[in-house]
């Protein structure tokens, strides 16, 4: 448990029968961070979020919480359809005893881009609008921890960017736990991430670390000069596992690991006096890393 932990779980298990549920989960969410929860469908993300939110009980294990107010915004929020957007936000604040004046309500709606719809009844809102309203209803409560389940799944590209920007801003106000299957979103806004597969944690740590696993160890080197000659020279280097001329002026180079290549390439080019025109690494995105993590577990 870190000293700035806001919420965490220890040996958390909730089983729904044979191999479904979550098992022996340990995680720690630090204050003021955006914490991503990713995993395939049925991995146990919703169970974990529900237990953190207190709407479901753990089977065994412990939840450690330093938060006074934890709010859960489900993927498809639902409200009394005859309430206006402003009333939903106002009542949400009043229910938890947060300030619920017209200024607070207007500010929350403005932050999610629903100012124009403030006085409209929410019954006819689209899924995306209801997601925004759910977020506004959460923000106005000033939670210590805001749990968001797929907050951008129903939004158009512009709306998604807006909401992701808002979530990025939120780390100054509260701790955010965000479940999403859109790994690009997670990579964009989260500081830390836990990957859950089959109810078990297969990876946990800073997003930067997981992205680091995808650092390239293969590059295309476009040079001024003959590629086959450079390929021969590079193949003799101890840190190189493969060097092929794939075009007249382009070498495909593979190193033992990313660090070896990152230090070896500039040194070798300088030694052999080869001018470099371009360098392109084969960086894996979070999606590829996620797939490799989940496949590893499946095997």
């Amino acid at each position, binding site marked *: 448990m870190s000293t700035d932990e806001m919420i965490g779980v220890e040996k958390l298990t909730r089983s729904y029968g044979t191999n479904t549920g979550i098992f022996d989960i340990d995680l720690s969410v630090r204050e003021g961070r955006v914490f991503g929860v990713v995993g395939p469908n049925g991995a146990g993300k919703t169970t974990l979020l529900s237990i953190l*939110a207190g709407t479901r009980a753990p089977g065994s294990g412990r939840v450690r919480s330093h938060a006074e107010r934890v709010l859960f915004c489900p993927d498809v*929020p639902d409200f*009394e359809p005859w309430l206006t957007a402003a009333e939903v936000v106002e*009542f949400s604040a009043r229910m938890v005893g947060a300030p619920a004046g017209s200024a607070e309500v207007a500010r929350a709606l403005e932050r999610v881009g629903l100012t124009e719809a403030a006085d409209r009844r929410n019954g006819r809102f689209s899924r995306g609008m209801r997601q925004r309203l759910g977020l506004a209803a959460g923000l106005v409560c000033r939670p210590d921890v805001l749990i968001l389940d797929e907050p951008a799944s129903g939004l158009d590209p512009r709306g998604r960017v807006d909401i992701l920007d808002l979530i990025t801003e939120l780390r100054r106000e509260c701790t955010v736990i965000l479940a999403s299957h859109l790994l690009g979103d997670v990579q964009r806004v989260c500081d830390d991430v836990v990957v859950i597969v089959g109810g078990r944690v297969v990876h946990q740590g800073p997003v930067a670390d997981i992205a680091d696993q995808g650092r390239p160890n293969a590059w295309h080197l476009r040079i001024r000069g003959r590629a086959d000659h450079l390929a021969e020279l590079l193949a003799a280097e101890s840190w190189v596992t493969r060097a092929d001329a794939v075009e007249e002026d382009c070498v495909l180079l593979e190193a033992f690991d990313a660090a070896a290549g990152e230090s070896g390439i500039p040194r070798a080019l300088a030694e052999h006096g080869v001018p470099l025109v371009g360098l392109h690494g084969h960086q894996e995105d979070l999606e590829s890393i996620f797939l490799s993590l989940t496949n590893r577990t499946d095997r």
Partner: protein
Amino acid sequence: MNGTLYRIEALRLLRTHTLLLLVLAFTAAGVVGPLSAYFMEDLLRLADPEGELAALDLKVPTMTAGDALGSHVELVAPLGALLVVLVAAMALTVDAGPGRSVFYRSRVPGTARLILPRVVLPALAAVLAHLVGALVAWAFTAMFFDGPPLPATMLGALLGGVYMVFVVAVVALASSLVRNALAVVGVAVLVLVVCAGAGGLPFLAEWAPGALLQGMVLPAVGTPLGDLLPAIATTVVLTVGALALALNRSGAREI
């Protein structure tokens, strides 16, 4: 915070027009009941234009104020109670969908705070509608028959209101057993039908909650309201029990 949840329920009754519909339905029963008693002979004649029933030498007894009010109760017992079930189910199916359930349950500490406003407001609406219906029934009865005393009739109607509270408590219990709105209505109706069936048994008749609806009729037929004490006791015990069980089960529910 509690005030907020009561305000939401008040808005539900007003904006969904359920309060208006309840009052109109009970008022309609208050009109139709006494009128159908007063015009019983004419109605039979209209139903038998060929005069075939006349050959059977059927005699329609002279209708009284008790029959007029009883006719109103006969309408209210099944139809009014069903409407109250529907109105209460709208409020009490808070866990029907996870989206709405999470909205309330992650903000409202304690099941009682969440559920009680959803019991109290529909129950008040049902009692109000029943009293309005009873008042209208009394007025039409007084117009055509020797009117029974208004205070006693309304006091008896108030006992019918206790039955309406019982109906709402049954819906609360049903909503703690099942989540889907239709299933809640089905379970509640089933429980009420069983109660009504039990009331049909001679040795249980005076104890059945449904007997309370007769409260507004008793003054017109010269029977003291005290005769309903066993039914009052049963209804109060069952209402409190149903609510306690509903709160207990609802509190243990997971989303």
